[in-house]
C-alpha cells in the first residue's frame, strides 16, 4: 500500500478487486437472468446461466395478474414526497446544528442518534393506534408523515456534516448585503451544497422506497400498497412464483441502484464525514 507498487502487487490487487466485484454483482445478475427466463425454464435442469429463450412473460404477468403498476406508482409518490419534505426540514435543523451553539444541542443530537438504535418495533403498535385515531390508516398521506419522521434524524446528521464544510463567510457576506438568514441559506448556501443535498435526498428516497414494516402494518387495501408490502404478499404465499418475483425484484432494485450509483461519491462523503472527523 505504500512506496513503489510492483507489477505482481498490481495484478494481485486487480484480481482481488475483480473477485469481490463478481461476488457483489452475482445476486443481481442471477435475479436479472431469472426474471427474463421463460416461466417454464425457471425450474428446469440444467440451470441456464442466460435466459433461453429470452422472455418478458414474467414482467407481463406482474402487471396483468398483480397491480404492480399501482404499487410502483404508490411507492414513487410516497417516497418522492417524503424524501423531499424530510430533506427540506432537515436542511433547517442541520443548518442550525452546524452553525450555532446552544444549550441542549448535544442532547438533541443524541436524541436523533438514539432513534437509529432502538428496535423500531416498539413504536409499531402505538403508531398504528395513532394512525387509526387520525384516520390515516391505509392512506398514502399517513405513510408519508411517518416516513418524513423516519428520515429526519439521519438526514439532519448527514447534512450537518456538509454544512460544516461550507465556509460561514459565504452567508455572512450575503447577510451583510442585506439578506435575512433564511434567504442567505437558500440563495447562497444551498446552491453550493447541491451535491450534498441531492445525496441526502437520494438517501431518504431509497430508505422510503425500501421501508417494509410500517407499510405492511398500515396499508391493507390493494390500491394503496407500496412495493415492499406487495413483495411481502408474494413471499408469504405458500408457493412462491419465482418468475414474477424476480421481475418484481428487478423493478424494485434498478431505480434505486441507478440513483445510488450516480450519487455514490457524495453519499459516501456524507456518511463518513461525521464518523471520521468527530
Amino acid at each position, binding site marked *: 500500500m505504500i512506496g513503489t507498487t510492483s507489477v505482481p502487487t498490481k495484478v494481485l490487487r486487480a484480481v482481488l478487486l475483480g473477485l469481490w466485484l463478481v461476488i457483489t454483482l452475482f445476486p443481481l445478475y442471477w435475479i436479472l437472468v431469472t426474471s427474463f427466463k421463460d416461466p417454464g425454464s425457471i425450474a428446469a435442469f440444467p440451470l441456464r446461466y442466460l435466459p433461453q429463450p429470452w422472455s418478458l412473460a414474467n414482467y407481463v404477468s406482474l402487471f396483468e395478474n398483480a397491480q404492480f403498476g399501482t404499487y410502483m406508482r404508490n411507492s414513487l409518490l410516497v417516497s418522492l414526497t417524503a424524501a423531499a419534505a424530510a430533506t427540506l426540514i432537515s436542511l433547517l435543523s442541520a443548518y442550525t446544528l452546524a452553525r*450555532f451553539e446552544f444549550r441542549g444541542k448535544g442532547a438533541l443530537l443524541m436524541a436523533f442518534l438514539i432513534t437509529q438504535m432502538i428496535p423500531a418495533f416498539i413504536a409499531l403498535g402505538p403508531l398504528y393506534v395513532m394512525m387509526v385515531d387520525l384516520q390515516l390508516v391505509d392512506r398514502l398521506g399517513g405513510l408519508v408523515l411517518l416516513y418524513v419522521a423516519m428520515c429526519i434524524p439521519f438526514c439532519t446528521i448527514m447534512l450537518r456534516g456538509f454544512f460544516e464544510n461550507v465556509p460561514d463567510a459565504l452567508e455572512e457576506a450575503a447577510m451583510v448585503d442585506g439578506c435575512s438568514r433564511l434567504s442567505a441559506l437558500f440563495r447562497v448556501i444551498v446552491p453550493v451544497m447541491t451535491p450534498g443535498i441531492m445525496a441526502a435526498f437520494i438517501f431518504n428516497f431509497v430508505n422510503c*422506497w425500501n421501508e417494509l414494516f410500517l407499510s405492511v402494518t398500515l396499508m391493507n387495501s390493494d390500491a394503496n400498497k407500496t412495493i*415492499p408490502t406487495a413483495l411481502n404478499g408474494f413471499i408469504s404465499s405458500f408457493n412462491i412464483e419465482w418468475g414474477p418475483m424476480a421481475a418484481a425484484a428487478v423493478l424494485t432494485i434498478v431505480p434505486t441502484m441507478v440513483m445510488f450509483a450516480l450519487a455514490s461519491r457524495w453519499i459516501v462523503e456524507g456518511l463518513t464525514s461525521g464518523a471520521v472527523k468527530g
Partner: protein
Amino acid sequence: MAVLDRAPRGHRPNPGRTPAPVGRSSKRPFTVRRGLGLLGFLAPALVFVAIFTYYPLLKGSQMAFQQWNLFDLRNTPFVGLANFRTLLANPTFYTVLEHSVVWVVGSIVPQLLIGFGLALLLRRHFRFRGVYQALAFFPWAVSGFLIGILFRWMFNGEFGVINDLLRKAGLIDTNIAWLADPTLAMFSVVVANVWYGVTFFTIMILAALQSVPDELIEAGALDGAGKVRTLFFIVIPFIRTTLLLTVLLRVIWVFNFPEIIYGMTGGGPAEQTHIVTSWMINFTSQGDYGLASALGLIVVGVLVLFTSFYLLALRERDAR
C-alpha cells in the same frame, strides 16, 4: 435571525486562520429572541420526531407492562412484569438470544476483515475507482428484505444457483437443502448478511485510511518498517478509534436488523433462524404488542449494557 451568533467550529481544517473565540456564544446569556430564532429552524424536525418517533416509542415502552393486543383494544390492563415473565419462561427466548449472538459475531467479524481488505485495496487511486465503487457499493441501494429474497432464491435447495455452482466445482454431489436444515439455514442467513454488510465497513474504513497522513506512512517506510508492520504499528493504531466505534455502531445495528432473515427464511425452519428482532415480528403480526414491546425493552437493555461494557473496556485499555 441576525441576532444569532455563529458557533465556533474549531475542528474544521483551517490552518492560516486564527481560531474563533471559543465559547463566546455559548457563554452568552440565553435570550428569548435567540431562543425563538433557533426554535423556528428546529421546530419542524422536532415536531415530527417527537410526535411520530418519541411519543410512540414511549407509549410502546409502556405497553411492555400492559396486556395489549391489537384485536382486544378495549381491555388493556397493566400487568406489571407478566410479559417479561412470559418471555423468560419460553425456551425459544434463549435459543433466539443465542442465535442473535451467532448472527452478530458471525456477520461482523467477516464483514470487518473483508471490508478492511477492500479498503486497503481501494486506498490508492486508480483509473475507474469511482466506477468500481459505484458498482461494488450497490448492495446499499437494496433493502435487507429484498436481499433476503434474492438469497432465498440462490440458496433454494432444488433450483438454487449455489448448489449448481458447487456441483460444477465438484465440491458436492447431491443438492444441499440449505434452508431446510436449522444449522445450514443459520449459516446461509449469516452468509447473506456478510455479503450485505461488507460495503458499510469498506466505506467507513476507506474514509479512515484516507485520513492517515502520507508522511506518517513514509516515515515508517524510511525507518525500515515493512508493509505489514506499517499496517499494524502505524495505520491501525491511527484509525483505532474509528474502527472501534464503527464496530460498536454495527453491532447495535446488526442486532436490530431482522429484514434479511425475514425475507430469506421467515425465521424457519421451525423457528430455528430467528434472532430477537425477527422473533418480535411474530408477536406484532399476532397483534400482541405487549409481548413485542417487552421483548423490545429487553433488546434495549442488552444493547445498553453491551455498549457500556464496550466503552468501559476501551477506556480501561487507554488508561493503561
